[in-house]
């Protein structure tokens, strides 16, 4: 089989739902910025080389509907020949899009393609505008519709992930992100126009500002402050706003190529997409997904957990991220603590600080992982996340020499 190479990987900043910079920016516009930023950084690759754009989106409806993959391609001025599709596997959607393009390249069906992800949680709410669970199934077994917060509570309760552990994990995520932001480590970010409509002199004016940082990072977070937060999903629970991911707006895109195409355009690829897998689990504890998906992935390629130089395990909730790390054999705090030099999990913070724009996250974490694999010279990188409904996804990347 052929190899599939990642040539470029970028993202917009992640900005807080409703309160952040992108609250009034159309999702298509976020995606267009990511796509154009991607092409600008892929010097020498003309837009008409791109055969297809797949966009992961967890709630592909309303402003994100009507096959946003095709619409965004047109809005970003790709030629008519460049196709587009929307992919949904909830929180793995962006990674699913990248994996699908990689498979097509590996199969020899395609040479140049983009895998992307997008979610404007400000504009299309989580759950969609009109959630309509199947009545008879909801009466029989509503677990598949369970709220994500409840699953996090279930994980915490069933696997003894205490409030203290979760708060500590959340605090570390914030500290890692704050430090990375200060050091300017998020080089995969494409400055993105943020739109607002400001009432001025009796009229509404469209104002555009360039946003180049993740606006959910709180460097002044303290453990004491986190301890005081009320449970968000259960009256006597342990999952709070401070140890859960933030709901966020953002887009991300990755350019993938076959070896022939890499040579043709004279590019130096970042990494190979080695493999991708999904694994199922109980819906009411969907957060444990990575604990199944990562071992399955590593076994597929004969690797040990410690063979992997960098992990991006999506922090949907601290409870599930901690449990997943425990289950893959990386329970020790040193693997993720902000003050640990040997940390390999979410080295620059995760969704608790940087946000979790559902369908975008898979593509976004890929961009972050590509940046850090290059910086650290990590041979293998693993990206993984839990998925609503009870699943986990994981992908293995290998750094190009």
């Amino acid at each position, binding site marked *: 089989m052929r190899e599939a190479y990642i040539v470029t990987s970028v993202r917009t900043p992640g900005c807080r739902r409703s309160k952040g910079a992108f609250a009034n920016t159309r999702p298509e516009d976020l995606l267009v910025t990511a796509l154009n930023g991607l092409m600008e950084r892929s010097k020498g690759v003309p837009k008409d080389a791109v055969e297809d754009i797949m966009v992961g989106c967890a709630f592909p409806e309303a402003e994100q509907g009507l096959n946003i993959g095709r619409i965004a391609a047109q809005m970003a001025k790709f030629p008519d020949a460049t196709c587009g599709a929307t992919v949904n596997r909830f929180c793995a959607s962006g990674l699913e899009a990248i994996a699908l393009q990689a498979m097509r390249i590996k199969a020899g069906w395609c040479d140049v393609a983009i895998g992307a992800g997008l979610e404007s949680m400000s504009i299309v709410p989580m759950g969609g*505008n*009109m*959630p*309509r*669970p*199947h*009545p008879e*199934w*909801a*009466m029989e077994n*509503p*677990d598949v*519709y*369970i*709220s994500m*917060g*409840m699953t996090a*509570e*279930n994980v915490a309760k069933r696997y003894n992930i205490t409030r203290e552990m979760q708060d500590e994990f959340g605090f570390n995520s914030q500290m890692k992100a704050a430090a990375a932001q200060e050091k300017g480590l998020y080089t995969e970010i494409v400055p993105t126009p943020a739109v607002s409509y400001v009432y001025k002199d009796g009229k509404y004016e469209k104002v555009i500002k360039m946003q180049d940082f993740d606006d959910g990072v709180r460097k002044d977070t303290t453990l004491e402050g986190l301890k005081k937060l009320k449970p968000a*999903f*259960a*009256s*006597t*629970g342990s999952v709070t706003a401070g140890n859960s991911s933030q709901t966020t707006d953002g887009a991300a895109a990755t350019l993938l190529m076959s070896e022939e195409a890499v040579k043709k355009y004279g590019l130096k690829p970042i990494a190979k997409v080695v493999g991708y897998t999904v694994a199922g689990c109980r819906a009411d504890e969907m957060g444990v997904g990575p604990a199944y998906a990562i071992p399955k992935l590593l076994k597929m390629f004969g690797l040990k957990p410690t063979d992997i130089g960098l992990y991006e395990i999506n922090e949907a909730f601290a409870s599930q991220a901690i449990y997943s790390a425990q289950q893959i054999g990386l329970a020790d705090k040193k693997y993720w603590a902000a003050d640990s030099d040997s940390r390999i999990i979410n080295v620059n913070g995760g969704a608790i600080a940087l946000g979790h724009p559902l369908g975008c996250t898979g593509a976004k974490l890929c961009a972050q992982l590509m940046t850090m694999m290059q910086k650290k010279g990590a041979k293998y990188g693993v990206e993984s996340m839990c998925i609503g409904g009870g699943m986990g996804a994981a992908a293995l990347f290998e750094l190009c020499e």
Partner: protein
Amino acid sequence: MVRRIEKAAVIGSGIMGGGIAALCASAGIPTLLLDIVPFDLKPEEKDNKDARNRIVKAGLEGAKKAKPGLFMDKKTDPDLISIGNLEDDFDKLKDVDIIFEVVVENLKIKQSLFERVEKVMKPTCIIASNTSGLPLAKMAEGRSAQFKKNFVILHFFNPVRYMKLLELVAGPDTDPEICKFVEQWGEKVLGKGIVWAKDTPNFIGNRIGVYFIAEAFRLLKDADVTIPEIDAMFGPTFGLPKTALFGLADLVGLDTIGHLSENSYQLLVNDEQRDVYQFPQFVKDMIAKKMLGNKTKDQGGFYKSEVDLATWKKIKKVIDVKTGEHKEFDKKAVVPECAKKAKEAKTLAEKQKAILFSDDKASQFAWKLISRAAIYTANRIPEISDTIVGIDNAMKWGYAWEAGPFEMWDNIGLEESVKKMEADGLTIPESIKTMLKKGNKTFYKIEGGKKYYYDLIKQEYKPIIFSENCLFLEVFKADKKNVVMSNDSCSLIDIGDGVFDLEFHSKMNAINKNMVDFMTEAAMYVYKNGVGMVIGNQAPGIPGAFSAGGDLSYMLGLARSGKFSEIDQFIRNVHAGIMGIRYAPFPIVAAPYGMTLGGGCEVCLACDKIVAHAELYMGLVEIGAGLVPGGCGMINLWRKFMDSVPGPAKLTDFGGYFIPAFMNVAQAKVSMSAAEARANGFLGPKDRIVFNKDYIIGEAKKEVLKMLDEGYVPPRKKKIPVMGREAIGMVHAELLNMRGGGYITPHMETIAKRIAFCMAGGLVNCGTLVDEEYLMTLEREAFVDLWKTENTQKMAEHIMNTGKPLMI
């Protein structure tokens, strides 16, 4: 000139100022709220607008956060208030039509403020001081003739939104046109009860109220009764609020009462009871020790609440007058014999007699206090008011007494009580002696459908002049022929022009079987003899209860003995009655106020129109009793939601309507005002909100007549679109999260699912148009099925016994 209040200003943003501003805004009047620039501004803050407005901002925030709420619609009313400070924004006063002065009670400060106001105000602007004791004449000293013409005292009571009393004081120079205007404006627009007072210290309410408290302090000193015993007598058992006497002192604060009392002592040099205003030593000690009541929680007041750290139980303590220490007591153990007797009595008159004329020590104390207070009050005419009506109203509206002092005197029997007072060696006021000599034995009487009061000055009966907007059922009922039908729980009263009022008068006006049967008969009577009907009553209290719900005892009895087919039949009758109201061939208007819960709410939802008092606490709360609404409440609420969708609009997201309608019932949401009831969807665009509680029956009657004028036809029966299956899927999925999160108990979840099933119209396709009868069947089945469960029986029994829902 047509006078209008288009804009108001309030100067001073403390508790009273913020309250007045909130009331004006709630009544829809744009209001400017001003306060001083802070004295402690840092140099760098001198030009900072936010810093300069810090005090007024804090005042407005306080009003927004106040509990109970001061704004009626928290979401939109505050937008009507703009803020500023007395330096930068003073000129803005030139645009307003009324200025409320609510600054600190300091004559000099007020005088210099008015001097500044005079320079900017428009010539027609009314200036109203909210002083609670400073003389009007002094405040207006040095002002122009124009200013004096426009100057009045409008004295509000705290909390402004809830206390009905508004005392008006005019000066010798006040323009009579302005007096008439503020009286009407205060009554109609702000909904207050107006009492004209004179320019005497503490006016009427606080003059009598503080005397009453001070006299109690004085008598307590040498009496052999305890504070809890006194409060057990002078709470609801005597027609006084729950706080009773010493609890009220704690609530208001001993410092405030001290100031008022001191004011009386200083200024009332000729008062025959002047010494009473000097508090006994133990009260002075309390004030010195900062034991002021609720505002000094750690020191307490007369009462003090502590928590036993071992058991986390609240311990209620009361002060020992002799030692000044707080001691634990058991509220139930201290009820004196006379108060127990009073509790058993049915009418207020019997209760008051029981308190005053029993043999126990406590009763003797009560008599001492009340006899002295009654005499003191009678002696205040004409000093503080020309009429007994003014004094009675002030005490009812400002102190929430169920009966004013003279009404109480009528209740206990004037002649007998005067004899007893004379036997005690008390000096009877000459005016009372003359009154009795002339053979007049009551202060009030109703004759020929008119209510009269006794004028103690002219020594004759005079008719009470009500605002023409006020209709009082009590007056109609005095003429027996107006009561055309009646049973122990409700009556049908002829209120003129062919309109009849259906009055509830059961305990808390709860709807029982007798009422349900009566409703149908009453409707038949009106069908034959009248043109329309008002459903309204005038129970006392703040806020009072239009109807606190359905009477559960009857159905619980049936359920306990397994008579479910009888419950089924009862609900069929209820449905027939309710839908009878809806489709009656004559207009029916509901006039709810205060608590309008469960069945009471359902009656209103069935009417052609609702004319609600602004203080409306409306909701379908049946889930708390283990039930779903059984009087078509869910159907009529959902219909109201669907009727608000304009014809040409195609509804794609039924969920946007279903969720709030369902949550109203499943969460037992109760509005905290009529504005909120409208926001919750219980009041529709046709329904009206009236600020004055005494107006609502009259306004409802007007609506009946107006509908007739316009050519009334009853609403036609039409099918109702329902959300069906999609709603049920949604609710079941969400309840999983609520159960998991511990936000709903198992039986409540069962009920919530039944509510969803009823309101969604069962498992039909979304958008199906269904018959009303079908929805009624769903409701009835849910109702009867729930009664069959042990858990619903337990919940119903629990709420009947405790007033609180049982969470199971």
